[in-house]
């Protein structure tokens, strides 16, 4: 298991290096950073002064090395627009999005996995169709619309939940449902397909032939094997939610990184945008790495070469 974990870690680090190069280049390619920094009314002398002051006249590899060194030290740059260190700005917002994404995935899993299991166990019956339609509605509705429906019903109509902000746990419930519901069909379908395949397998027949009760056959022998692909998908979905929460965060006025990203684009705050891309990529890779480890624990065959 240790060899497996180290090998995967090595691969993850390689991808991370590529991501850092791409992130770095994107900002340099997006236009002349010196002009952007100096502002629209600057004279060409002023632009040149900014260029020298920030080192934009040096060769790109040298600039990359300096930038990477800073990043590794935890210095993600300084936002001239907000007049604050970028790391501070991002870290202030990250917990909101992390909580939202975590709750959303939890909601998606709680809905999707039982639906998938039931649909597989009762395949091609009315229960199967019903389970599928419950999941599919989540994908059919655009999530801003679904969010608005939730606000109208649970917030305005029934007055059960607060409709905007991120102060308390209650504030997270509707956004998490809106965001998480979108991920349910994919997880549910994969669980269903996996369960159907596994339930037809020879080792399930063995388990039944040895007298194990049906519940145990389904929940232990089948589900564990069917969940292996679901783990990877969930990691990807969680990553999507981190970066894709822009709409939901806006609708519910939550100060997460999705909203921060949107604001930074509007005010061309390159430093913050670059930091967000990098941080989201790192989180994404970390999630995938964790999914690999979890799969290694679930499937002993992955551990050996």
């Amino acid at each position, binding site marked *: 298991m240790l060899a497996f974990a180290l090998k995967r870690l090595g691969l993850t680090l390689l991808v991370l290096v590529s991501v850092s190069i791409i992130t770095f280049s994107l900002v340099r390619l997006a236009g002349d950073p010196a002009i952007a920094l100096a502002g629209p009314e600057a004279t060409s002398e002023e632009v040149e002064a900014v260029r020298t002051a920030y080192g934009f006249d040096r060769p790109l590899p040298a600039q990359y090395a300096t930038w990477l060194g800073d990043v590794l030290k935890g210095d993600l740059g300084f936002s001239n627009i907000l007049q604050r260190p970028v790391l501070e700005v991002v870290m202030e917002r990250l917990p909101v999005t992390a909580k939202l994404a975590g709750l959303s995935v939890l909601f998606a899993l709680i809905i999707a996995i039982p639906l998938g299991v039931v649909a597989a166990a009762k395949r091609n019956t009315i229960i199967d169709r019903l389970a599928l339609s419950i999941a599919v509605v989540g994908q059919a509705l655009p999530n801003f619309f679904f969010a608005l429906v939730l606000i109208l019903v649970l917030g305005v109509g029934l007055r059960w939940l607060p409709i905007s902000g991120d102060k308390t746990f209650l504030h997270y419930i509707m956004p998490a449902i809106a965001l998480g519901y979108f991920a349910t069909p994919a997880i549910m379908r994969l669980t269903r397909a996996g369960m159907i395949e596994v339930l037809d*397998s*020879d*080792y399930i*027949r*063995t*388990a*039944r*032939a*040895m*007298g*194990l*009760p*049906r519940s145990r056959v389904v929940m232990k*022998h089948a589900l*564990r*094997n069917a969940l292996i692909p679901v783990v990877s998908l969930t990691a990807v979905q969680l990553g999507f939610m981190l970066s894709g929460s822009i709409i939901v965060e806006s609708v519910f006025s939550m100060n997460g990184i999705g909203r921060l990203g949107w604001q930074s684009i509007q005010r061309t705050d390159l430093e913050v945008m670059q930091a967000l891309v990098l941080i989201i990529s790192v989180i994404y890779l970390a999630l995938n790495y964790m999914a690999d480890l979890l799969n290694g624990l*679930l*499937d*002993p*065959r992955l551990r*050996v070469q």
Partner: protein
Amino acid sequence: MSLLNVENLTIDIAHPRGTLHAVRGVSFHVEKGETLCIVGESGCGKSLTSHALLGLSPRVAKVEAGALSFDGTDLRRLKERQWQKLRGLKMSMIFQDPMTSLNPSFTIGSLLEEVYMRHHPGGRSAARARAIEILKKVGMSNAEERLHQYPHQLSGGLRQRVMIAMGLICGPDLLIADEPTTALDVNIQLQILRLMQQLKEEMGLGIIFVTHDLGLVARFADRVAVMYAGRIVETAPVAELFANPCHPYTRALINCIPVPGKTRPGEPLGAIPGVVPSLIGPQSGCAFRDRCAHATPLCARALERKRDGAAHVYECHYTPEETAA
């Protein structure tokens, strides 16, 4: 009283073009400490029959029987929960492909212990001790270490031994083996057969051995039931069957086996002309008649069982003398 008694077992499967009569009135019995080999080609219904004995028929199959009793229990009346208590404890089953028949996610130890604890509630330590004991019994060296290994770490032969150990861990009276050696190398096949033979003698086990390989039947069976197109066409003690086959199909099958010293090199092996008839829709008469060299219009009429000695039964309108080539 027989350990297992099956009378007039039929299995029908709904099919878009009509009912598929996969098993059409099969009767046999197995005694304690006896090996019954059910032999036949692919699709003759032998696997469906063996699965039905454990209540493991596919959901689409409609299983009926005049009698289906095991150790005094009427299996036809069992509810799923009662089946679960019987399976693994009193009768169990091992399968063809040991590569896919063991759950890849669990260690050998946890697979074995789970079966034992299912039928003997109590501590894990008793189950562990029993798992080690049964692994030793099926001839696995380093039994304690094997407990911590996963199926993919074992060879096919060893996996089949684990499969047998799972089947026998609760000391059942009947073991149903559905082509347990088909997926194995020939030398491993022999090891597994010897093992089953030895376990049968030690544990007084009744065995139903399902196979398409008459060569294995000759080595291993006490009695043989030859299946064709959903019927048992002939059943006899093994020596009697090979010495005096009464049904043209049995004879044709035996002729397909090359005999060292007798079959000359380069001589084409015997093959049965034609194909197995479709079992969809109503069936009548002898199913083998389209492929039989001795068939006459009489063969389309309803069959009756004939005896040739006390334990030798066959279904043919003609006597062995009349159909001898």
